[in-house]
C-alpha cells in the first residue's frame, strides 16, 4: 500500500514528463491493477485538452482584457463623478432653501392683518353673553351663511390704530 501511495503521488509528475518511472515502480505498475487504472486515468487527464488546436492568442486576449478593465474604470469614474455632482447640487439646494426660508431681518415686519372673518368674530364674541336667544340665533345663522352674504366689516387701516399701536408698528418696521 505505501508503494501505491508513493506511485500515486508521483503520477502527475511522470505523466507531465518531469520525471520517469524507476524499474521498481514500473514493476509495481505491472502487477497492481489499482495503480495501473489510476495511471491510465492520470495520463488521459494530463493530455485532456491538448488537442484543442491553437492556444489562445495571449497578446490579443491581454489587450481585450485590459481594454475591458479600462472601460470599466472609466464608467465607474463617471458614475462616481455623477454621484458627487448630484450630492453637491443637493447640498447646495438644501443650503439655498434653508437660507431663503429664514425670515429676512431687513424686511419691515408688518403687523399681521387679521382676516375679515377673524375681525368679525373678535368683534362679535365679547357681546354674545349679553344677547338673548333670538339675537344669538341670528348671529349663529349669519356664521352659516356664505361670506359674501354677510355684512363685511371695514378692513382696519393704520388710522384705526391707537397711538401706542401705531408706534409699535412703526418701530417694528424700522421707520
Amino acid at each position, binding site marked *: 500500500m505505501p508503494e501505491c501511495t508513493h506511485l500515486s503521488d508521483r503520477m502527475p509528475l511522470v505523466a507531465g514528463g518531469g520525471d520517469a518511472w524507476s524499474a521498481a515502480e514500473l514493476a509495481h505498475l505491472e502487477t497492481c491493477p489499482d495503480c495501473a487504472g489510476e495511471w491510465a*486515468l492520470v495520463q488521459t*487527464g494530463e493530455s*485532456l485538452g491538448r488537442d484543442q488546436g491553437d492556444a489562445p492568442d495571449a497578446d490579443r*486576449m*491581454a489587450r481585450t*482584457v485590459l481594454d475591458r478593465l479600462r472601460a470599466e474604470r472609466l464608467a465607474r469614474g463617471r458614475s462616481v463623478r455623477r454621484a458627487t455632482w448630484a450630492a453637491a447640487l443637493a447640498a447646495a439646494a438644501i443650503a439655498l432653501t434653508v437660507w431663503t426660508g429664514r425670515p429676512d431681518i431687513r424686511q419691515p415686519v408688518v403687523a399681521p392683518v387679521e382676516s375679515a372673518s377673524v375681525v368679525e368674530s373678535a368683534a362679535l364674541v365679547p357681546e354674545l353673553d349679553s344677547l338673548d336667544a333670538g339675537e344669538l340665533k341670528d348671529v349663529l345663522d349669519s356664521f352659516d351663511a356664505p361670506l359674501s352674504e354677510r355684512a363685511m366689516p371695514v378692513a382696519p387701516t393704520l388710522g384705526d390704530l391707537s397711538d401706542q399701536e401705531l408706534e409699535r408698528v412703526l418701530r417694528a418696521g424700522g421707520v
Partner: protein
Amino acid sequence: MTESGQTTDAALIGAYRAGSERAAAELVARHAAALGRFLYGAGAGRSDVDDFVQETFFRAFRRIDGWRGDATFRSWLFAIGGNLLKDDFRRRKGRRVVSIEDRDVVDHADPAGDLAALDAHERLRAGLRRLPRLQREVFLLRVQQGTDYADIAAALGTTPGAARVHYHHAVKKLKELCDA
C-alpha cells in the same frame, strides 16, 4: 526571479498593480493555455473556452488585490475559472449546449489512434462532469498541473488532507464511470 531567470508571477502581479500592462500581458501569456485546458476538462464547450479564459482573466485582474500569495497565481486563477463555470452551469440550469465543434474529429496521420484517444478523453470528460465540483477540480489541478495538495487546498479553500481525499474519491469514481 526564478532559478531559470524568469520573473515570478508575484513580481508580475506587483508590476501590474503598479500600472504595468505589459506585466498583465505576460501573465496572460503564461497561464492562458493551461487555464483553457483546465476549463475544457472541467466541462466548458470547446467553442466557449476562449471566452471563459478571457472572462477569468478579466475577473482576476479586477480583483487582483484578492490574491495574497496563499496559493499560486495559477491555482487561484483556476479557482476563479471554476466559479465562472459553476455560475454558467447554474444560469443554464444544468443544460449544456454541445456545439458541432465540440464533437469534431481530429484529422491526423493515425486516425484509429486519434479516435481511441478521443474516446478516452470524451469518456473522461463525461465522467468528470458527473463528479462533485471539488473532486473534479482537485483531480484536474493534480493531473494537469501537478499541483501539490497544499496549493490545491489554498486555492479551493480546503485542507491538504481533504484535497487528497477528494482526489482519491475522484479517481475511484472515474475508474468506475470510465470502465462502465
